[in-house]
Each structure stands twice: as structure tokens, then as C-alpha cells.
């Protein structure tokens, strides 16, 4: 089992879709939301994903294919 801390950034068209609920339903991934800021047209959610590495990777690939941006919680670490 693995845990991964990520930030989901939602585009306006996905704000009303239960993406995180569906992620938990469709993949063997437990989602644990820690912080969020969501308005009617934009938002981000910081959460922990708990599951097998493969399930987490597949879940992230699915979320990404929906149009959600997925990043590590610390933001970009590649610096100039």
C-alpha cells in the first residue's frame, strides 16, 4: 500500500461533477481531503490518496483525463 499527497486543480466545467467521489468508487483508492478552496467557477483540493501504487496511478490518469490537473502538494520543485 502507498499514500500520495496531491493537489487537484479543477477547471470551471468540472466544479459541479463529483470527481473525487467517482475516483473512490471506480478505483481501489481511498481519498482523504485535508484542505480545499472551491468557488462556483474554480477550485483546488488537497488530499491524500491511499491504495496500491498501480491503483493510484490509474486513478490519477483517469482524473487527469477528465481535465483535472494533479500536482504534488508542495507545488513545482524544478527551479531556475
Amino acid at each position, binding site marked *: 500500500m502507498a499514500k500520495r*499527497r496531491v493537489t487537484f*486543480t479543477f477547471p470551471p466545467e468540472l466544479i459541479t461533477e463529483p470527481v473525487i467521489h467517482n475516483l473512490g468508487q471506480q478505483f481501489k483508492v481511498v481519498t482523504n481531503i*485535508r*484542505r480545499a*478552496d472551491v*468557488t462556483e467557477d*474554480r*477550485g*483546488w483540493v*488537497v488530499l*491524500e490518496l491511499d491504495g496500491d501504487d498501480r491503483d493510484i496511478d490509474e486513478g490519477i490518469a483517469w482524473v487527469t483525463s477528465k481535465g483535472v*490537473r494533479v*500536482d*504534488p*502538494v*508542495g*507545488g*513545482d*520543485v*524544478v*527551479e*531556475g
Partner: protein
Amino acid sequence: MSYATALRCRECGREYPQEPINVCEVCFGPLEVAYDYESIARDLSRDKIAAAPASMWRYKELLPVSGEVIDIGTGFTPLTKADNLGRELGLRQLYLKNDCLNPTYSFKDRVVSVAATKAKEFGFSAIACTSTGNLAGSVAAHAARAGLKAYIFIPADLEQGKILGAAIYNPTLIAVNGNYDEVNRLCNELADKYPWGFVNINIRPYYAEGSKTLGYEVAEQLGWRAPDHAVVPVASGALLVKIWKGLNELSMLGLIGPVSTRMHATQAAGCAPVVEAFRAGTHIIRPVKPNTIAKSLAIGNPADGYYALKTIGESGGAASAATDAEIVAGIKLLAESEGIFAETAGGVVVSGLRHLVAEGAIKRDELVVAFITGCGLKTLEAVADSVVSPPIIQPTLASFEQMYGERAL
């Protein structure tokens, strides 16, 4: 002796011991160093600072280290009154904080000096980073000085000049063949697995504190006062936040008066998530895919973007972006007017400042400090096509005069 007392979550306020960690275990918020300001106020004075060596470490009481520091000669860089550039931009009191003059030619030496010192305190035998330029050179240089190993990850397509700027210090350099997001993910995984001081991951709370010294130095060099405006290049956003923190710490300690500095962010138009959020009136950053010649600012998902936006808002500042053509024009204007050859981030600051003046965010008689964070020799390719090649003459007076004639008199 250190005056730092704990790491504190910026979101929920939970405190943690000073360890190599950067994220709150409960809310995953970023951690920041907390200090015993009462003791610092008792022990620190203008006279004590003025008597200390002219380096960033003259403010050691305000940095989170306890032992011998890893110093390659960083800081107390010149604050130059820029009358020629000021005339061009319509400003009567413009100053340039010239951090081109650090040992590896960028402000990164400030943050890495603290990070390397802290890594050694924690007992790490290696420090690491992922970089497209300035950070790589600084980490490699500090590791050499400290006797630490250095693991430096660079993009596989990085220019030879930038590889040389780090390779000369003989670190372990690893070129990664992947896109930006893949490299980011790899580095987070490496930081989880290997016992390294990854300067901007597990050492990040300490590392970022080094940027406060820019605020301290500017205030001291202005005769112990804060400027009316600070114009700062924004990549991760930490630099802008920490300059503001530094100025406010000095005020809280009674070393300067109240701070009314307006903090302004400048970014490249091809990577401007902070500027775009500012214009949209939100603190929510929409990550972008960078596409700009200003590689040192090309962070599409800035770790401190939210806090930079909060700081801009609290201070009454603004934000502006410069196109690649404006960046080159800014580099040239700075060089031709003040004799300072800056890298692309400097071009962003100069052109961004021009926009801020034009928009009325900065007035003619106000005291402005523009932060020039890196040397132009690092990004020669950005201006190579826009400077004139020299004409060739024969080694005779006649040949010279044929070309220039009376124009040279």
C-alpha cells in the same frame, strides 16, 4: 545558538520540532520557521548588525541556524541608485538591488547558504535539487565548500553553458529525460526515498528564510527604512513573500519604522500564473505550462503563489507581466543605462516596472527598489541575436577612419 523555536503550519498553526520536514501532517499546509522575537529584540541592534561582517550572515539572529554557517561570501550586495534608468522609466528615486554579485551570480546563494548549513546540522551527507540553472550552480558550490555530496537533477536538454556552471564544482549531475511534470514527480519521490537534504523539498522551510536577507539589506542600505515599493521577479513566489516578511520583522523588532512598502510581482507573460490570478481578483492559482525565455522564472505551479498573492493584496501592491520581446528590451535597457547585465529575470523586472509606472501603480517621486536577481552571463542566448556584431577593420588608422570618420571625435 538559534532563535528559531519551531516549524509552524501556515494554514492551521500546528507546531512541529525543527526537523527536515516541509508539510503539515494534518492539513498538508506548508511549514514555516517560527522565532523567539522577544529574545531577538533584546539581543539585536542596529549597531550590532553594522559591526558584523558585510554578508547575509550579519543577520544570523534572524536565520534558523545554530552552528557554523556554510558561507561562500554571499550577500550585502550593492544597492545602487539608478538615475539613468529612473529617467527612462519616469522615476526620481529608483534603486537596484544587484544580486548578480553573489558568488554564483544569483540570489540563490542566499537560500542555499541557509539550506546547506541546515543540512549539515541535520547530519545529511548530501544535498540535492532539481534545477534549470541558478539553483544547480549554487547547490553545487555550497556542497563543495561544505564537504557534502551534491545530487543535481537537470533536464536532459539543458544548454551546455548552464551544465558547465554547475559541473565545474564536481557534483553528481543527472540529466533527466522527461517532461516538466514527470521531473517534478520524480524529485518528490527521490526526496521521500533518499536520505538527502533536498533544498527546496524537505529543507524548504529553512531554505526559503534566506531570501529575507534581501529585505534586511535593502532596509539597512536605505538608512534603516523600508522602500515605498518593491518590484520582485516571481517564480515560486517565495522571494516576494520573504522580502515582505524580512521588512516586517525589522519593524516588529523596532529596527525600522512601520512598513508601508507595496510589494509588486513581475512575471514573464509566457508563465504568469500569479499575475493572471491577481488580474482575475482571486488567490486561486491556475497552473500553466511555461513558455518563455525567462527560464529562471518558469514555474507553472508556484509553491508560494497563493502566499505571494496574499502579500501583494495586504501590501497594496500590483502585478505585471512582460513578453519575451519586452524581457530582451528590459535587459538591454538596464545594461545600456546602468551598466548592469542581468539575466532574463532582470529583464522581466525592468519591463514589469515600466508597466507598473504606466498603469499608475507607482508614482514618480516614490522610493522604488527593483530586485535584480541574477547575472546576464547565465542567459547569453536570450540576447545573442539582439546585439550588434562588431564591424571588422584592417589594422590601420585609415581603415578605422574610413568606417567611423568624424563620428568618433
